[in-house]
């Protein structure tokens, strides 16, 4: 494979598979029920912790 092709391959992997990893991680670390389980640090009751 040429250097250009390898670079494009790595960029595609980073952006697409990386995108999946990042969005999955976000979903797992920002679950909804945090708001329902009572006040968490820095949030008011019933608000959504990471909105805004």
């Amino acid at each position, binding site marked *: 494979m040429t250097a250009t092709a390898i670079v494009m391959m790595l960029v595609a992997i980073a952006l697409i598979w990386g995108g999946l990893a990042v969005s999955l991680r976000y979903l797992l670390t920002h679950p909804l029920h945090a708001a329902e389980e009572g006040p968490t640090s820095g949030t008011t009751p019933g608000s*959504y912790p990471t909105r805004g």
Partner: protein
Amino acid sequence: MSTLKPPPKEHAAREQWSSPYGFILAAVGSAVGLGNIWRFPGVAYENGGGAFLVPYLVALLVAGVPILLLDYSLGHRYRGSSPAVFRRIGRRFEPLGWFHVAISFVIITYYAVILAWAIRYTMFSVNLAWGDDTVGFFVGEYLQLGDPAFNLDVVGGVFWPLLAIWVVAAIVMARGVTRGVELANRLFLPLLTIMFLALVVRAMFLPGASDGLNQFFTPNWGALADAGVWIAAFSQIFFSLSIAFGIMITYSSYLPRRSNLAPTGFVTAFANSSFELLAGFGVFATLGFMAFQQGVGVGELSGIKGVALSFMTFPQVISMMPGGPVFGVLFFGSLVLAGFTSLISLLQVVSAALQEKFGIRRQVASLVVTGTTGLLSVVLFSTTNGLNALDVVDKFANEVGIVIAAIAMTLVVGLGLRMLPTLRTHLNRTSTARVGKWWDIAVGIVNPLMLIVMFGITLAALLREGYGGYPTSFVGIFGWGAFAFMVVAAFGFSAIPWRTPVDDFDPVRVHDRADDALVDAPEPLRVETLERLSDDDEGGRR
């Protein structure tokens, strides 16, 4: 409209996914289908190779994710099948929902046939039954293809696997959302991933694989100046992600009232694209091996997309490689699994609509839907004319039907009713990630414009030169005829009275006031409110 009052009946609770992950699996299972495996690699290669990544990612973020989130917000906020959702938005929009149902219905009839071929080819793989002339075997010996004309000579090799698919699909649908659709995805999606990963790893170790990948990833930056390449990227995202024709609306209507919609949308979209990229590796490594065996350049190979890739080119490569039968079973088995989870999502669109419109139980709906689509698939596509008819119907269902549905939907909720701020607020109320104003612009302006341009180009070509060299009358019957059917069905079904209290649903009461009560309430009341809301979730549609 008739004034017939529906008989008072106990409403069963709306079905619900057993967990957010059950929904994600089902959504990904629906999005990952035949198009990921056999369409993406060839499209990317023909449209700039590595450079295709640029329009592809733009299309993913501008069209894919925003329209997916639009589907989610509509299905989740209005909690119903497509026709119910659009009727709740405004009575005169109900036909758009039925148009979705009709598109799904049409696609089901031929999609199942391709699965039947894939099942048969999984068996053919074991002893490489296709021999040396794979093209002649597929169209001649297997499909017994005749001239493009209507006939009723059913091909046994297609009929029996097709029957098996319909039996399994009917059972899955009858078992419902959790024990049927979700369970099937929980089993098939991990299995598909494992099988396809095994196939890709094997392909990477074939001689010539790196030449194939080299061809696939080498960028042709000049392609980016070509409008056709951008349209190809938007089309690929559109047709691959199962958006804008009711599937994601229907699936998201089974989510509980509190669901993390926005991040889930990103996960679904990127999972779908991730599978496409994986397929790019598998397909082009394999094509590299084929070129290596034949002593030609990868660029000289033909039949690198769709039916030709899967049922003509791949059998040829499989015959060339050591351990070919195993590779063949992995490849065709993957097609079957990927396609089946997409098929049941299409069936759910039709089944949910019939259940809600006619107040019938899902077991009855399941039998009606699989029975009619099954019969049509046998009559229309398992005949000696199946391949031609399928090709034409596929073209019109996707590039005419879905594109028109998407244009209509984005125009209605965007410029027409100006609902996007409300829907965006809905997404933000139910999500731990915030969707910004960019979404309104993407959905309301960029997408309709892009889609109208795409459709204009398709329509001009269809009117000027017909399609695929088929006789005009043939394209008229199977292409324009299928489209006419969708339109007639859309208005015809809208005229039939509902047997369930579809208009009693109030999204403001169910969602917004409940949310406000939750935010404003002091702690003890909040707990009480939450309990009441979860009861509401159990209570289903109201």
